[in-house]
C-alpha cells in the first residue's frame, strides 16, 4: 500500500509541477488561488447580518442551498453515462502490478477524497457567493465543507460499489439510477405535499419545504442539513446525530467499497480507457463536457450540404442533430435549477436574468465553436477566412440565442414582466452573446496551444470578461450617471449596449478572421 500511497503523492506533486511548468501557467495558477481567496474574503467582509442571528427561514434557505448544490453534484455523478474506477494509466499499472484488489480499491477511494474536497470547496464558494445579505462564519464554512465532503464520498463510494458489481453482473447497473430517481421523486412528493397543504400557494409551499423536519429523514442529505442547522443553533445533540450518521455511513460505504468483489479487471480496464480518452478530449477542448453523457447517436437522413464555407455550417448542424446537442436535457435542467434558485434567493426576474448570463458564459466555454476551431480541416477549406469563421460561429450563435430567448420568455412570463421588457432583455442578451462568441474566436487566436488546459480556460474567461466590459460599463454609466429610471430611457440603455456590443463583436470578428487561413492556430 505504501507504493500506492507514494504513487498518489507523486501524481499530486506532478500535477502541481505541471501547473507551474511555464511562467504564464504559474502566474495564472497563483492568480486563480488568490482570486478564490480574495473573492471569499471580499464576500465575507461585506457588511452583512450574521447567519446565526438571522431568522429560521433564511438559515434554512442558506443551508438548503449548500445541501442542494452538493446533491446536484452527486446526482450529476450518479446519472453520468461514462464511468470508470481509475484513469487508463492507473488501471494499466495497478491491475497488472503486484497489488491486491483491496489495495487498488483503497487507492481508488483516495481519488474520491480529492474529488469530494474539490466539490466541497465549490459548494462553500456557491453558498458564500449566493448569501448576499447573510454573514457566513468560518466555522460554518468548515462544517459545510466537512458535511458536503462526507455526503459526496458516501454517494460516490456507494455508486462505485454498484458500478463494480454491475461490471460483472450487468443486472445491477440500473440500481444507482433508480435510487437517484426515487430520491428525486421523494423530493417532488414532499414539494407537492407542501403545495397541497398551502392551497397551492407556491411561495408558502416553498418556504415550508425549506423548513420541514421531514427532510431530515432523507438519506445523507437530510443528515447533512440536520448537522448544519444544529451547528448554527448550537444544538450539540442534533449536531452529533447528524454528523455521527454521516460518519457512520461513510465508514459503511467504504467497507462495502473495499470488500472483495468478483473479478472486474477486464471490464474496468475497458471503461478506464474509454473514459480517459473522453476526459482528455474534453480537457483539450475537442469535446464538450456534455459529451460525457452523450446519448446514442440519432440517425439523420438527407442532409443538404451547402457549398464552400457553408459546408461547415451544414456539417455542424448535422452533428448537432445526430448528437442531439441542439438542446440537451442537462442544459434544460441547469436552466430549471437556476430558475428555482432565482425564486428561492430573490424571487425576481433580474436575478434569473443575471444567472442566465452566467450560464450562457459557461455554455460558451463548452460550445461547438471551440471544438471546430481545434480541427485542422476548417483551415484548409478553400474559401474566404471571414466566411469560414462566420459559418463556424453560426450554429453556436443559433443554439445559444435560442436557449437565451426561450429562457427569458418563460422567466418573463412567470415573473410577470411586460412583453416590451422581455424583448429588451432578449436584445440586450443577444448583444452579449455576439461579444462572447467573437471573443471566443479571438481567444483561440491569441491563445493558440498552451501548456495546460486549465490555464487556457482561465485566459479565455478573462478575455471574454474583458470583451464584455465595455457594454457593462456603458450600461452602468448610463444607469448611474444619467440617473435613468423611466422605461424609454431604459430602452436607450438596452439599444446603446446592443449597438456597442455589436460594433465590438464586429471588431473582434475582424481581428479573428485571418486565423482561418490557418497559420495562427498553433503555438509559437
Amino acid at each position, binding site marked *: 500500500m505504501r507504493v500506492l500511497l507514494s504513487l498518489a503523492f507523486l501524481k499530486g506533486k506532478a500535477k502541481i509541477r505541471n501547473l507551474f511548468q511555464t511562467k504564464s501557467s504559474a502566474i495564472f495558477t497563483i492568480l486563480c488561488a488568490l482570486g478564490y481567496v480574495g473573492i471569499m474574503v471580499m464576500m465575507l467582509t461585506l457588511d452583512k447580518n450574521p447567519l446565526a442571528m438571522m431568522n429560521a427561514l433564511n438559515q434554512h434557505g442558506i443551508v438548503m442551498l449548500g445541501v442542494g448544490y452538493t446533491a446536484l453534484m452527486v446526482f450529476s455523478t450518479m446519472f453520468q453515462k461514462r464511468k470508470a474506477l481509475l484513469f487508463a494509466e492507473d488501471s494499466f499499472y495497478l491491475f497488472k502490478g503486484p497489488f491486491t484488489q483491496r489495495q487498488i480499491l483503497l487507492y481508488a477511494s483516495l481519488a474520491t477524497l480529492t474529488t469530494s474536497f474539490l466539490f466541497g470547496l465549490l459548494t462553500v464558494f456557491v453558498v458564500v457567493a449566493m448569501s448576499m445579505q447573510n454573514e457566513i462564519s468560518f466555522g460554518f464554512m468548515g462544517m459545510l465543507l466537512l458535511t458536503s465532503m462526507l455526503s459526496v464520498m458516501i454517494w460516490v463510494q456507494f455508486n462505485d460499489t454498484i458500478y463494480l458489481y454491475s461490471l460483472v453482473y450487468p443486472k445491477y447497473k440500473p440500481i444507482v439510477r433508480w435510487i437517484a430517481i426515487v430520491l428525486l421523486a421523494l423530493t417532488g412528493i414532499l414539494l407537492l405535499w407542501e403545495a397541497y397543504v398551502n392551497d397551492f400557494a407556491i411561495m408558502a409551499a416553498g418556504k415550508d419545504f425549506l423548513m420541514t423536519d421531514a427532510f431530515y429523514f432523507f438519506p445523507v442529505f437530510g443528515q447533512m442539513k440536520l448537522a448544519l442547522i444544529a451547528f448554527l443553533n448550537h444544538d450539540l445533540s442534533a449536531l452529533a446525530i447528524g454528523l455521527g450518521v454521516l460518519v457512520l455511513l461513510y465508514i459503511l460505504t467504504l467497507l462495502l467499497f473495499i470488500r472483495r468483489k468478483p473479478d472486474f479487471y477486464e471490464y474496468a480496464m475497458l471503461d478506464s480507457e474509454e473514459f480517459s480518452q473522453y476526459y482528455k478530449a474534453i480537457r483539450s477542448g475537442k469535446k464538450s463536457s456534455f459529451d460525457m453523457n452523450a446519448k446514442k447517436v440519432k440517425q439523420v437522413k438527407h442532409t443538404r*450540404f451547402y457549398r*464552400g*464555407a*457553408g459546408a461547415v455550417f451544414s*456539417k455542424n448542424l448535422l452533428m448537432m442533430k*445526430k448528437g442531439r446537442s441542439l438542446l440537451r436535457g442537462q442544459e434544460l435542467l441547469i436552466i430549471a435549477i437556476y430558475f428555482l434558485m432565482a425564486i428561492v434567493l430573490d424571487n425576481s426576474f433580474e436575478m434569473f436574468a443575471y444567472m442566465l448570463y452566467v450560464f450562457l458564459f459557461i455554455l460558451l466555454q463548452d460550445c461547438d465553436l471551440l471544438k471546430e476551431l481545434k480541427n485542422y480541416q476548417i483551415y*484548409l477549406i*478553400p474559401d474566404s477566412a471571414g466566411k469560414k469563421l462566420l459559418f463556424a460561429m453560426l450554429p453556436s450563435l443559433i443554439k445559444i440565442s435560442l436557449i437565451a430567448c426561450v429562457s427569458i420568455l418563460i422567466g418573463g412570463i412567470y415573473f410577470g414582466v411586460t412583453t416590451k421588457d422581455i424583448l429588451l432583455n432578449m436584445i440586450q442578451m443577444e448583444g452579449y452573446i455576439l461579444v462572447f462568441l467573437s471573443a471566443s474566436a479571438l481567444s483561440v487566436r491569441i491563445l493558440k496551444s498552451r501548456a495546460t488546459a486549465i490555464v487556457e480556460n482561465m485566459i479565455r474567461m478573462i478575455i471574454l470578461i474583458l470583451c464584455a466590459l465595455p457594454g457593462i460599463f456603458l450600461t452602468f454609466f448610463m444607469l448611474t450617471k444619467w440617473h435613468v429610471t423611466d422605461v424609454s430611457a431604459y430602452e436607450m440603455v438596452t439599444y446603446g449596449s446592443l449597438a456597442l456590443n455589436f460594433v465590438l463583436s464586429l471588431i473582434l470578428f475582424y481581428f479573428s478572421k485571418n486565423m482561418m487561413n*490557418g*497559420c495562427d492556430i498553433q503555438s509559437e
Partner: protein
Amino acid sequence: MIEVHHLTKTYGKLKAVDDVNLCAKPGEITVLLGPNGAGKSTTIKSIAALLKYEGEIKICGHDNHSVAAKKLFGYIPEAPVLYDILTVAEHVRFIANAYRVEHYEEKMVQYLELFDLSDKKDKMAKELSKGMKQKLSMMLALIISPQALLVDEPMVGLDPASIEDTLRLFVKLKEQGVSILISTHIIDVIDEIWDDAYIMDHGKIVQTLKRTELKEQSLKEVFFACVGEHHESAA
C-alpha cells in the same frame, strides 16, 4: 508543384526547421526523410499553412495561404482527425461540398472500393478501426483531386495489403501529374516509389538526391551516412 524557399520555424529559442529549401515537382514522388524530431512534420504543417513560419511557400505557383492554393492541395496528417459521429459518407460529402467538387459521388464509390470501405460507408468514424480511419483520412484528401499532395507518415496503422494499395495509388497519382511530398522515417516503405529525396536532421536539409543519381549505394545507406548509425532503429 510545391516550392519551399528559406523556410524557418522556431519554437521559442529552438529552431525546429532551419532555412529549408525544397521542391516537389509535378509527376514525381518527393520524400522527406529524417529521424524523429528532424523537423519533417513541422515542414509539412508549414506547407499546409497550419503553422506560422518565416520564408516563402508556393503551391502550384500560389501562396500557400491563398484560397487558390488551398483548392489544389490535399493533406493527409499523421494522425487522422475525424468527426466521431459522422459516417464515412458524410465525411466525404462534407469535404466534397466544402471544396465544391462536382459529381463527387462517382469518385466516392471508386475510392470506397479502392480502400475496401464500401461496406463501411454508413459507419461512424468512431466505429472504424485505426487503419480504416487512416484510409478515410486519405480518401478525404484525395476526393478533391489535388494537384499537390502532402502526406505525413502515411503508413501508420495500415495493414500490409493496404500499404501496397496506397503505394500503387501514389504511383498512379504521380502518373497523372500530381506533385507528391511524403514525409516518413520508414525508408523501406517508400524505397520502391520515390523520385527525389530530401534528408533532414536537426531541422536542416543535410542531403538532396535523385533516384537517377544513386549508383551503388541504396537510399538507406545514404540516409545513415548523413544522420549517423545511431538512428538505424528509426529506419
